[in-house]
């Protein structure tokens, strides 16, 4: 099914991109025409961010081409080329300088504003756009961005993307632009998108609020596993058909243990939800999944649970919880160390007598875990960074599993891990759970969520749904992850 307008401004043709073992884009083609707004939807790992990266020039595809109108045959596509041809992006992360005022940020973004009275001109550029998109925005352009609220910052980012600098903005990519805006301000932005598109501009809109997509976009592209699985005018989709298109054929769930009756047992871990959000509970021997789109509060919840056990001042002799990091480089690896030391760090208190680490025991335990979990290396003394990503992740698993901790918290640890490793780890987790260990598992992958006994789906920082047993299905998770309420 193809649907296309006549005058394409941006064409991505047959783009593939792999990050290590993971194929993020799979020969994808995407065309953006002048004067249209395309809604881009898909679950975690569908390849949306990679596609955005390719369109703004930050990511280079392994194969395939990208063409932008006005740049035919003039060399490689890059961030500079994209900017020059009016491609603008609004990301979820803050891309402004918090110490500078709104006006000064406009100066940073638009190098051409300089010389005499630059301040007045910079302010005019950003203020006129703010007034146009968000009437009554109440933002003081002389205020530093750090002093603004999160919604106001987002509004400034959006205004900056649409504002005119060296040239007009022609293609604006908005990645979850409304995530921190309230409904009425979000409506103002969506209305402006329509106006912008009517004047000949092009917009790519990514949002987890499907209603926004259905009402604002001319055309909707649904992605899954690095490919486009559906592409057509918005009028051809409904909330249900969109959710359906994002999922795959419903597979029978691997028969895990039947859900047990927990009414009379005490949870090993619990946390009160705010307002109407369901309470989080985990019982001994259970694998509890945290699902939902990435960045909706799952990691924060895990860190909070972990920090709840204390231990910043005094070492715990009897470890209650261990943590498996997902972002290895930020909160997992100790990069200067060997594999051995990376495995043993959490376990160290158990291996120490009178302050001295018993290295023989340390090595024996690390060795047994190396064999059990299959870390591919010829020596435990090799540096951790000599391993492939998947094997580094196995080291982090061993670090947690080698302890006696009854609770293991996992922060999307399978990101970027090959399928073989995944299968090995799944069976290991199940075996450990059967022996009474509790796992709290945040995962962005449906397959992994389906391995869990019970699942909490997160949206906008809170739990919105609890699923158990046969209810743990892709369509249920998707429906809860995306806001499908009528606006």
């Amino acid at each position, binding site marked *: 099914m193809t649907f296309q307008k006549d005058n394409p401004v941006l064409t991505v043709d047959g783009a593939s991109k792999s990050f290590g073992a993971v194929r993020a884009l799979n020969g994808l083609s995407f065309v953006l025409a002048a004067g249209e707004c395309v809604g881009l939807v898909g679950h975690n790992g569908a390849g949306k961010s990679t596609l955005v990266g390719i369109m703004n020039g930050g990511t280079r595809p392994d194969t395939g081409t990208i063409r932008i109108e006005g740049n035919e045959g003039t060399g490689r596509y890059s961030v500079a080329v994209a900017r020059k041809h009016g491609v603008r992006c609004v990301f979820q992360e803050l891309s402004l300088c918090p110490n500078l005022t709104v006006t000064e940020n406009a100066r940073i973004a638009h190098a051409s504003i300089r010389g005499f009275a630059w301040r007045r001109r910079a302010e005019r550029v950003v203020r006129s756009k703010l007034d146009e998109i968000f009437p009554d925005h109440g933002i003081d352009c002389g205020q530093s961005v750090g002093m603004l609220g999160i919604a106001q910052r987002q509004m400034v980012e959006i205004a900056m993307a649409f504002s005119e600098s060296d040239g007009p903005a022609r293609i604006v990519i908005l990645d979850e632009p409304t995530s921190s805006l309230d409904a009425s301000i979000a409506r103002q932005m969506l209305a402006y998108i329509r106006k912008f598109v009517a004047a000949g501009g092009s917009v790519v809109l990514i949002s987890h609020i499907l209603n926004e997509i259905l009402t604002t976009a001319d055309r909707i592209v649904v992605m899954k596993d690095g490919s486009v699985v559906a592409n057509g005018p918005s009028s051809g989709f409904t909330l249900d058909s969109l959710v359906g298109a994002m999922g795959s054929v419903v597979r029978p769930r691997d028969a895990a243990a039947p859900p047990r009756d927990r009414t009379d047992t005490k949870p090993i871990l619990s946390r009160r939800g705010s307002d109407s959000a369901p309470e989080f509970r985990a019982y001994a021997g259970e694998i509890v999944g945290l699902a939902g789109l990435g960045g909706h509060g799952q990691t924060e919840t895990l860190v909070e649970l972990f920090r709840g056990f204390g231990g910043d001042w005094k070492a715990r002799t009897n470890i209650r919880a261990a943590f498996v990091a997902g972002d290895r480089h930020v909160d997992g690896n100790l990069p*200067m160390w060997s594999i051995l*030391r990376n495995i043993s*760090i959490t376990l160290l208190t158990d291996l120490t007598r009178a*302050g001295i680490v018993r*290295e023989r025991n340390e090595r024996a335990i690390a060795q047994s875990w190396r064999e059990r979990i299959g870390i591919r290396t010829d020596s435990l003394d090799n540096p951790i960074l000599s391993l492939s990503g998947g094997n580094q992740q196995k080291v982090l698993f061993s670090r947690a599993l080698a302890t006696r901790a009854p609770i293991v918290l996992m922060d999307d640890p399978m990101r970027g891990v090959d399928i073989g490793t995944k299968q090995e780890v799944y069976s290991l987790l199940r075996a450990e759970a059967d022996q009474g260990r509790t796992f709290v598992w945040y995962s962005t992958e449906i397959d992994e969520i389906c391995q869990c006994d019970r699942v909490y789906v997160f949206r906008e920082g809170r739990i919105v749904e609890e699923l158990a047993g046969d209810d743990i299905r892709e369509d249920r998770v998707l429906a809860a992850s995306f806001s499908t309420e009528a606006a």
Partner: protein
Amino acid sequence: MTSLRTLFAKPWIWSFLAAAGVWLVTIVFTGGASAAGLSQAALTFAAFSIIVGIGQMFVITLGPGNVDLSIPATMTLAGTVALKIMDSSNGLILMGLLVTLLIGLAIGIINYALIKLLRIPPIIATLSSSFIIQSAAISYNRGLRIKPPSALAEFTTATTLGIPNLAYLALAVSVAAWVALEKGIYGRWVSAVGQNMRAARMAGVPVDGVRAATYLLCAVLAALAGLLLSCFSGGAALNMGAEYLLTSIAVVVIGGTAVAGGFANVPGIWGASLFLFLVVSMLNTYGAAAGIRLLLTGTIIIAVIIAASRRPRT
């Protein structure tokens, strides 16, 4: 051959080679007459930089931005107060040692309290506290020059089997530090915190406890060095710690400890301390001015840190 290669792969070997080279050049220049005297002097003076350097080494290993600038003030305060308390009497030596220890502990606690509670970079926290410590030392004992107890004065200036007693003491401190660093859980924790504080926390390392203990250790070692220095030089002086501010950091950097944290190295401190002293005495033998000496020290520090930087920006 392989053992030679592993030897040369050690980060501390270079500071020792440099020290040996400078030693040889000086000996050749003076016609070999002063070999024993030069070695003894080198070991004696290096002992002070080794003791404060080890404290500073653990602090720097805690990661970027961690450095203790209150070392000189701590040395001065400990030296003056301990000498006054001991009042030149051999019977009060134990008391003096106890006071030295308490001063070190108190300063360490204050330093980490400032870092933790005011959430300011360690460099400013230890700087502000060093102002107050310095004032305390000045007001406690202005102008008075009390002689150290004769037993301590004798101990710090004497040699045993041809080697200065201070060098034995520095060796004892170094061995203890080496064991804690290489064999103990404390060294693992310090290194983990220095490599990636967030990862260390999530791996169950008691981050705050480790950092506090390290600042305490550094202050205690500085206090001890202050006491020894004042006994060695026959009395406390208000500026006696001054040169150890830069020296303590220089020996750590030259000794092969990672400036960005995560990796520490005890033997290198010895090589670097001996090297720094020998460079000074070599230049003195050549009759070079103090200015050349400073210039060279600075150039060496910068050259070492540029050579040791392994992660150029891409």
